[in-house]
C-alpha cells in the first residue's frame, strides 16, 4: 500500500518500544527467589498444550467457549498480521506474492472468515460486559473495553482495506482480474463498486494504515494492561506446579534469616510471574468463601496487588533501595490489608478454578508468615491458640493426660511393635466431646475389620496443621521435628487419621522434613476394606444423606470417590449432592486456622454452607472432617434448622451399618 519506508520506520519504533516495555516488566520477575519449575519438561509441554492451547479450564465455565474461540482466532490472525507486516515492508515478501493463488487464495479466505468470527465473539464479549456481567468481576473495566474495541476496530480495518483492495477486481474491468475468495471483504467491496478509482485507492490506503496503527498500538498497549496475560499465560501453564499446592516451603531458622514474604521480592519468581498471567477473569473471586460471605479477601485482587507492588517497587529494589509502596498495610492498590490476609480458609478453591494455574493460597499464607514470625501481628485470639499449641501440644490447651479419655470404655492398645497401624486420633478426636464419638466409631470399624491398631495416648501431639496455615512456621517446625522423632522411636510407619487436616499434614507436609509415612484417612481405608470384603456392612437406609467434601480430603488430596462409595455401601444409595460439590465444594469456614479465630467480618461461612446443604432436603449431612462436623452442627443451630436434620461423620454412618455383633462395640 505504498510508503514502505515510512511503515518500516513506524514498525521499528513500535517493536523497539514493545520489546523495551516487555524487558522492563519481565526483568522484574527475576527479582523473585529461585524455584524449580523446569523439571519434567515433556509433562510441562503436555500441560501447556492441554491447558493453554486446549483451554481445558477456560471452557469449564459456560462463557469459556467464547474465550476459546477468541484464543484460536488470535492464533490464526497472528499469522495474518505477520503477513500483513511483512508485505507492508515489501509486497514481494507477502504470501500473496510468492504463493500460487491456489494456495494463497484459501489462506486469505480463512483470514477473512476468522476475522468475521473474531468480530462476532468480540461483540459477544462486549455485550456480556454491557448487558449481563457476572457479579464477581469488575467486568466493565476500562481496560477490557479498550482492548475489545481495539480488536473490533482491527477487524473493521482488515475488512475495509481488503474490500477496497478487491473492489477494482470485481470483474467489471478488463485484464487480469484475480479475486481472492474472501466472502466478507468481497461483499463489502460490492458496496464500493461505482466509486471513482481514486476514492477507492484512498480508502484502501486509509484502511491499510488504520490497520497498521491499531495493530502496533495494540502491541504496545499489551504490556501495560491486564492483557499482559496474552504473553504470560501460555508459559505459566508450562511452569504450572506438577503436584498439588497443598503444602508450603519449609523455612530455615538462623540469625539474620527472613521469614515469609513482607516485601514483594521475597516471593519466588513464579509467584511474580503468576501475577503477570492474571487476566482478572474473577473466577477465583467467584468461588472464594471469604469473598462470598463479605470478607475483605478477593484472591484476584491479592494477585493484582502483587503485580502493582512489583511494578511500583521493582526498579528501586533492583537498585538496592527500599520499596516505596508497602506490600502489607492499609488496603490500597498494590498493598494488601491484614484483614485480607487473615480471611483465607486455605480451602484452595481459587487454585482449583484458575485457568492459568495461579497459586493464590500459598501467597496469602506466606504473607501470614511475615506477620506472625517477624512482627508478631495477628488477631488477638490467635495468641491463645499459639500458646496452647506450644505449651500443651493441642489447640485447646488441655492436659495431654486427657488424650485417652475418649477410649476409657473400650480397649485401645498403646501403639507398639505388635500393632500394625497407628490410629492418630487427632486433637478434636481426643478432646472434642462430639468428635470423641467419631473416634469410637472409627475404633469400632477397625475392630470389626480385624485391623491391628494402637494409639500413642498422652504422647500424641497435634500434627500442627493450623500452626502452619496460620503462618507460625517456627512453632510448626518444632512440633513436626518432635513428632517425627516420636514416630521414629516408636516405629510408626502406617497411620490412620480421622481428620483430613491430620491426614494431609502428616502425608504431605511431614515429607518435607524427611519422613515418608503411609497415611490413610478413614474414608479411604473404609472404602478399601469394604471393597476387599473385609468389613461387613449391612446397607441400612437412613433417609436422604448429603455429602459435604472437606477441602483437605477433596481439593487438596483429590479424594472424592471413596466417601461416595462408602455412603452407597452403608446406606444403599448414592448421596445427594449440593450445588457445589467435589472440586467445587464450598469450605465450611474452619480451615487455614480459621477454626481458632473469630469470624467478625461479613456473614458466617458455615451458615452459607448449611443453607446450601438444607436445599437438598437432607435427613443427614455427612462429613469426613472434625472441623466440618463442628461448623455444620453450629450452623444448623444458628439457622434454627429442623432438629431432625443430623450431622454425622462418615465413620458414624458406617458404624451404624455394621452387623449386630460388630455394632455392639460401636455402641460401647
Amino acid at each position, binding site marked *: 500500500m505504498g510508503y514502505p519506508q515510512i511503515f518500516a520506520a513506524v514498525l521499528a519504533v513500535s517493536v523497539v518500544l514493545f520489546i523495551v516495555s516487555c524487558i522492563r516488566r519481565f526483568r522484574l520477575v527475576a527479582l523473585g527467589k529461585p524455584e524449580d519449575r523446569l523439571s519434567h519438561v515433556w509433562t510441562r509441554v503436555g500441560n501447556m498444550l492441554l491447558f493453554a492451547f486446549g483451554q481445558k479450564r477456560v471452557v469449564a465455565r459456560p462463557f469459556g467457549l467464547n474465550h476459546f474461540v477468541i484464543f484460536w482466532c488470535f492464533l490464526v490472525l497472528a499469522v495474518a498480521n505477520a503477513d500483513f507486516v511483512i508485505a507492508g515492508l515489501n509486497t514481494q515478501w507477502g504470501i500473496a506474492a510468492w504463493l500460487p493463488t491456489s494456495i494463497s487464495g484459501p489462506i486469505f479466505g480463512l483470514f477473512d472468515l476468522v476475522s468475521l468470527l473474531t468480530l462476532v465473539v468480540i461483540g459477544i464479549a462486549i455485550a456480556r460486559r454491557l448487558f449481563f456481567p457476572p457479579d464477581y468481576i469488575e467486568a466493565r473495566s476500562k481496560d477490557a473495553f479498550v482492548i475489545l474495541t481495539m480488536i473490533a476496530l482491527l477487524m473493521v480495518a482488515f475488512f475495509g482495506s481488503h474490500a477496497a483492495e478487491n473492489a477494482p477486481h470485481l470483474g467489471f474491468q478488463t485484464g487480469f482480474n484475480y479475486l481472492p475468495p474472501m466472502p466478507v471483504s468481497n461483499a463489502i467491496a460490492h458496496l464500493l463498486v461505482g466509486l471513482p478509482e481514486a476514492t477507492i485507492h484512498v480508502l484502501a490506503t486509509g484502511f491499510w494504515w488504520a490497520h497498521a496503527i491499531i495493530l502496533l498500538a495494540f502491541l504496545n498497549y499489551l504490556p501495560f494492561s491486564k492483557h499482559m496475560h496474552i504473553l504470560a499465560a501460555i508459559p505459566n501453564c508450562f511452569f504450572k506446579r506438577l503436584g498439588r499446592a497443598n503444602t508450603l516451603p519449609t523455612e530455615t*531458622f*538462623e*540469625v539474620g534469616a527472613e*521469614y515469609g514474604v513482607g516485601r514483594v521480592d521475597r516471593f519466588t519468581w513464579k509467584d511474580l510471574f503468576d501475577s503477570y498471567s492474571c487476566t482478572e477473569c474473577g473466577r477465583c473471586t467467584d468461588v472464594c468463601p471469604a469473598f462470598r460471605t463479605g470478607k475483605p479477601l478477593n484472591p484476584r485482587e491479592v494477585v493484582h496487588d502483587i503485580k502493582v507492588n512489583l511494578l511500583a517497587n521493582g526498579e528501586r529494589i533492583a537498585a538496592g533501595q527500599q520499596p516505596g509502596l508497602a506490600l502489607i498495610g492499609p488496603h490500597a492498590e498494590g498493598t494488601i490489608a491484614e484483614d485480607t490476609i487473615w480471611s483465607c480458609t486455605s480451602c484452595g478453591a481459587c487454585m482449583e478454578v484458575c485457568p492459568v494455574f495461579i497459586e493464590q493460597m500459598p501467597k496469602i499464607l506466606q504473607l501470614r508468615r511475615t506477620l*506472625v*514470625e*517477624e*512482627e*508478631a501481628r*495477628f488477631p*488477638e485470639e490467635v*495468641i491463645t491458640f*499459639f*500458646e496452647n499449641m506450644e*505449651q*500443651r501440644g493441642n489447640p485447646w*490447651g*488441655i*492436659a*495431654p*493426660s486427657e488424650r485417652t479419655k475418649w477410649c476409657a470404655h473400650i480397649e485401645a492398645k498403646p501403639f507398639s511393635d505388635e500393632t500394625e497401624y497407628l490410629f492418630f486420633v487427632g486433637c478434636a478426636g481426643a478432646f472434642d466431646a462430639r468428635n470423641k464419638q467419631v473416634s469410637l466409631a472409627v475404633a469400632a470399624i477397625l475392630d470389626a475389620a480385624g485391623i491391628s491398631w494402637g494409639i500413642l495416648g498422652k504422647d500424641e501431639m497435634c500434627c500442627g496443621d493450623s500452626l502452619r496455615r496460620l503462618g507460625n512456621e*517456627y512453632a510448626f517446625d518444632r512440633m513436626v521435628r518432635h513428632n517425627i522423632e516420636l514416630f521414629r522411636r516408636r516405629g510408626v510407619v502406617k497411620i490412620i487419621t480421622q481428620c483430613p487436616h491430620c491426614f494431609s499434614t502428616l502425608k504431605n507436609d511431614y515429607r518435607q522434613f524427611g519422613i515418608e509415612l503411609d497415611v490413610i484417612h478413614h474414608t479411604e481405608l473404609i472404602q478399601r476394606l469394604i471393597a476387599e470384603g473385609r468389613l461387613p456392612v449391612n446397607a441400612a437406609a437412613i433417609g436422604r444423606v448429603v455429602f459435604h467434601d472437606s477441602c483437605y480430603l477433596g481439593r487438596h488430596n483429590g479424594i472424592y470417590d471413596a466417601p461416595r462409595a462408602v455412603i452407597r455401601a452403608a446406606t444403599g444409595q448414592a448421596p445427594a449432592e449440593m450445588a457445589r460439590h467435589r472440586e467445587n465444594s464450598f469450605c465450611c469456614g474452619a480451615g487455614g486456622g480459621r477454626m481458632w479465630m473469630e469470624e467478625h467480618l461479613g456473614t458466617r461461612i458455615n451458615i452459607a454452607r448449611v443453607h446450601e446443604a438444607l436445599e437438598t432436603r437432607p435427613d443427614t449431612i455427612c462429613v469426613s472432617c472434625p472441623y466440618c462436623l463442628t461448623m455444620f452442627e453450629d450452623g444448623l443451630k444458628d439457622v434454627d434448622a429442623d432438629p431432625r436434620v443430623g450431622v454425622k461423620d462418615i465413620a458414624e454412618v458406617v458404624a451404624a451399618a455394621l452387623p449386630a455383633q460388630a455394632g455392639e462395640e460401636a455402641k460401647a
Partner: protein
Amino acid sequence: MLVVACIKQVPDTTQVSIDPVTNTLIREGVPFIMNPYDTHALEEALRLKDRYGFRVAAISMGPPNAEVTLRKALAAGADEVVLLSDRAFGGADTLATSQVLSAAITRLNEREEVAVVLCGKQTIDGDTAQVGPGIATRLGYTQLTLVDQIQHLDLAARRVRVRRKLEGRHEIVEAPMPAVLTVVREINRPRYPTVPMRLAAEQAEIPVWSNAVMTIAPETIGLKGSPTKVNRIFSPERDKGEILGDGAHDPDGAAELLIARLMSKDLLPL
C-alpha cells in the same frame, strides 16, 4: 532507669496430679512454664519500656533449668536477665525467696537506678502472694498489690499512680517510687515473641548469680532462712452433690426445687 520483672518458673499445674497414695505432687514429666501472672508482670515492664524508655531486667530465682524461662523473657523483649541460682537458695519459703530477690534488685540498683519492680500477684504453684510484698518490705519500696492499670509515672516527682483491682471495686492510688507492683491478669495481654527475638534469646548467655557473688547471710536464705514448714500436701475430699428432682422429665419442677434449696441456704439473694 530500670524496671525489674521478677518471674518464676513453675510446673504447668494443669498437668500436675496428686499421687493418691503418698498425697504428694507428681511432678515427673510435667513441663515447666513461666508463672502465668508473671507473664503479665513482664509484659507490663515491656510496656513501661515502650512508654518511658526504661530498660527491662527480668530476674528469677530457681534451679539451673529456670534459664529456659529467662530465655522466654529475652525473646519477649527484656534487655537483660539474671538467674539467681545456688544450692544455698534451695528449699526457700516466701521470706527467704524475697531475701534473695531483694538482694539481686539491690545489686541491679547499684548499677542503674530501679524505678519499678513488677511481680505477678502470686504464683500458681505456691499461691501465697507473699513474695512481692516481701520484696517491698525488704527493700523499703512502696508496696502496691493487685494492680490492673499503671496510669502514670511522674519521673520528676518520683511518683506512680496505679489502679488496684479489689473485690467489687477499683482503687486508684498514688505513691512514691521506687515501688513494687504486683499485677493481676487483667492488666494486659502478653505479647508473642518474634522469631528473630527467639533465635537471639536461644543463643544468649544467661548470667547466673550464685551466693558467692551475692554474699547474702547464709542463715537468711534457703531452707535455713525459711521459718515456714509444709507438713502435708493433699487433695481435699469433695462432698458429692445431690441431684434434685428429675431435670430430664420435669425441668420446671427441678428448677423450683433448686431455687427453694438455694434460698433456704441464703445463697440466692432476692
